[in-house]
């Protein structure tokens, strides 16, 4: 019983934006979808929710295809990032109208929650999107996501433009809703450190491929930063999966990802430190640019 995509490929103008992505989203979890700009996060969420067609592969929900299947689609909500400068005419739409349409189309829409969130965020729904700032638009997408009550809910950059208080409110609301409903959330975000405590599972998408799909804590626990004299560091991490080497003079720092049973040779004169989710992500995805530099 899950939302499953198998070998998803998406090609734009001859370029593979997604390359054979296979993913299984289990019910009742909060997933974090992280990746650099252009990694394919929004494209993947669009395909999972049948908003965009895939060039290849299939998406199923509990074994049924999602594409053009109203029953499956009614269980998925992808609350898109709103753009106040959109050419589609969305900028002229009022917040009130947008929420009215959402309440019409999402079967389980929670009107009471909508009213509570509008009050909490102090939103003026009579304003047109063009007159709203980025934070307000994010609040609208959060309201749609939470009030839809869809068992599978995707949020694309929900905290973009929100101040730190509003971001805290969002994470609190997300956990509250999750605890109450057991819905599955997929949150795509660049503000990794803040979200790390909320995300049960992390999916790292890099250049159209899934690099990591793992329990967040297990993934963070598997990563270590090892630093010291270059020769000592090289000896200490010999045979391990090493990423993101940083050399300053005779000193060196690397990030290693340990597989079960592996360990850093701490008998060497090195410092071994745990790393944060953000640091682990940078170590995995920031390497090409360093090599190019």
């Amino acid at each position: 019983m899950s939302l499953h995509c198998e070998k998803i490929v998406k090609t734009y103008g001859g370029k593979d934006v997604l390359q054979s992505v296979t993913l299984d989203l289990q019910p009742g979890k909060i997933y974090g979808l992280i990746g650099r700009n252009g990694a394919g996060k929004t494209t993947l969420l669009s395909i999972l929710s049948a908003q965009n067609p895939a060039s290849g592969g299939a998406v199923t929900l509990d074994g049924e295809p999602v594409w053009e299947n109203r029953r499956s689609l009614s269980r998925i909500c992808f609350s898109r990032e709103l753009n106040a400068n959109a050419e589609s005419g969305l900028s002229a739409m009022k917040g009130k109208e947008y929420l009215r349409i959402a309440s019409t189309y999402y079967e389980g829409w929670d009107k009471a929650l909508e009213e509570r969130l509008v009050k909490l965020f102090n939103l003026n729904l009579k304003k047109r999107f063009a007159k709203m700032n980025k934070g307000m638009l994010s609040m609208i997408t959060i309201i749609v996501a939470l009030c839809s009550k869809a068992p599978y809910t995707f949020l694309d950059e929900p905290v973009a433009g929100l101040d730190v208080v509003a971001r805290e409110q969002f994470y609190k609301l997300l956990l509250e809703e999750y605890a109450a409903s057991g819905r599955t959330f997929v949150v795509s975000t660049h503000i990794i450190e803040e979200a790390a405590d909320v995300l049960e599972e992390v999916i790292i998408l890099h250049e159209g491929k899934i690099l990591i799909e793992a329990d967040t804590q297990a993934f963070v626990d598997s990563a270590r930063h090892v630093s010291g004299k270059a020769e000592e560091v090289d000896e200490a991490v010999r045979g391990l999966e090493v990423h993101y080497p940083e050399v300053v003079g005779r000193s060196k720092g690397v990030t290693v990802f340990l597989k079960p049973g592996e360990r850093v040779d701490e008998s060497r004169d090195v410092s071994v430190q745990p790393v944060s989710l953000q640091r682990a992500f940078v170590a995995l995805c920031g390497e090409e640019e360093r090599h190019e530099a």
Partner: protein
Amino acid sequence: MKRNIRFWTRYTWEGMEVNLGMTAVFVLLTLFGASHLQLQQLAATAPYLLCVAAIIGMLMINTGSQTLYVPLLLSMGETRRNVLLGFHYYRTLIISVTLALCALIWLAVPGEASAIGLSSIPTILCVLIIAASLGSIIGTLFVKWKWLGTVVIILLCGGFGGMVGMTSVNITKGMDLAAAVELAGVLAALPWQLIAAAAVSLALDVAFQWLLLRRQEVKL
């Protein structure tokens, strides 16, 4: 489908508000232009003004619907098939309401002009179908090929200007009953070419729309 019908019915009403507003402006211009007010004269011309407003409204609203509401509804989990059906339900409804209003006005004020007006309904139906289809074809072009859609919209805006200007000039001159009867007489004769044009434009519109919609990507 129930949700779809609820949304498009409400959208139809909003579209009708625009059409009725435009008609009210035209009627006001007629009143200013008239040397003396004749109810029968107003009854004979008002439905045609409503039709002009509906044509302009559908050209504009159908274009906007394609670029905004179709992707918006897809983003809210509606199937492509239902979006297409809902859009055509809305078009059918807005044309039906316009024709019903015209018929009601003509029936309410019997007379020669009203009788001819009633017999011109099939012609008006064809014209409204062509306008509605043209509006949504332009929207489809705009979604697929922005530059081409923009060129057509610019040309269309020029056309609107001319249409509104011509209508305004004619009605402020004060359209007399004889002229209204003459116009109704022309419209009452339904040429087969018009029926063919309506059928072709509708078929082209559905084909264009479905070709685009079946693989359309949501961009908002």
